[in-house]
């Protein structure tokens, strides 16, 4: 397993723990996750971050519990592993962005056992980094199907389906 941190900054020598920019409500006992930490994502979940950092997006996966009805409505016809919906206005940024993937040493991190997220409380020096300059190709390699909508509002109900849904940077989505 590898751990990555994705950034639009190509020049990070050391990751310094810092609080999340916009604190979110955490379950009791997990408030510390809003505090100073270095965040990483494990390689199996990197699809979520193969986008410009501020791009609002909703990613869908099938699970063993996905019903036939939901499969018919949302997935049938597609051979993708993951469907990603973005706003049309973000298509060009996705097509042209360069993002940097930092490979981090796993020893410093503990798993949150939640969506592939890991955190470290100490400074972390990356092992290496690479620039990802053609995100559509990265999506294709990982069998991610990108879909555009005028806005993401029609997907508000997707969390009530039997698909697994992840929403990222939805605070940037129009009228969300």
């Amino acid at each position, binding site marked *: 397993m590898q751990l990555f941190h994705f950034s639009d900054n190509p020049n990070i020598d050391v990751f310094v723990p810092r609080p999340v920019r916009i604190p979110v409500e955490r379950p009791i006992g997990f408030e510390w996750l809003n505090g100073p930490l270095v965040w990483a994502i494990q390689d199996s979940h990197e699809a979520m971050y193969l986008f410009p950092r501020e791009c609002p997006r909703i990613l869908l996966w099938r699970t063993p519990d996905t019903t036939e009805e939901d499969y018919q*409505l949302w997935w049938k*016809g597609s051979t993708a592993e993951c469907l990603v919906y973005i706003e049309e206005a973000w298509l060009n940024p996705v*097509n042209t962005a360069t993002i940097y993937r930092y490979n981090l040493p796993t020893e410093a991190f503990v798993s949150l056992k939640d969506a592939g997220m890991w955190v470290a409380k100490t400074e972390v020096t990356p092992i290496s980094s690479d620039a990802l300059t053609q995100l*559509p190709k990265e999506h294709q390699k990982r069998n991610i199907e990108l879909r555009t909508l005028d806005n993401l509002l029609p997907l508000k109900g997707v969390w009530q389906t039997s698909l697994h849904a992840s929403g990222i940077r939805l605070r940037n989505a129009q009228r969300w």
Partner: protein
Amino acid sequence: MLAVFGYAMLKDGRRQCKDTILIDFDGVLRHWVGSEVNDAERTLGLASGTLFSLAFSHELLFPAITGEVTHEQWHERVKSKLVQRHTDEVASKLIKAWNEASWEIDFELLHSLKQLAPTCQYVLVTNATSRLDADLQRASLRSAFNVVVNSSQIGVTKPDRLFFYQALSIADSQVCRSVFIDDSLDNVNAARSIGIESIHYQNVADTLEFIRKQCT
């Protein structure tokens, strides 16, 4: 393949024939030919369009075509608004005329399409109310389509792009294998924006030529 899935190209460089025809209902296959509503409005001394400007207002139509209310509830809501603006008698007469409004199916277009592209699957894609199935039965059309995608059943309407993604999913098809026929330019533009080859329906001849090029 780039960000938005588009044409499927065969290995020898030829473009893949499409095997899924998404076709609209009202304005393409079904045409409202009667003058019942206009006649009623004239007889009642009302401006032409009194009923439909109300019935097809976003406020009243949208809940009906997203399945929030049934076709009958939609009519009830329209009637209530008419009663507020006119009289109970006027409202009743207009609703009666609406219920009696006659329509025709362009069987010739359907027949010609199927002759031209007999191996394609035909997917009816329509912003419709809960009455669609009954209308299709009445016109003996249910078996004419491999799949029927009714906005009131999926809760999303054209021209929302999600409608097209879900229609393709229900039809077990893909953008690159599909064509779309609709008389609304907004709908056509939405389908094109996700890569579906589409025609703005204006006449039978152009539509058949489009299908001949895309699907044969």
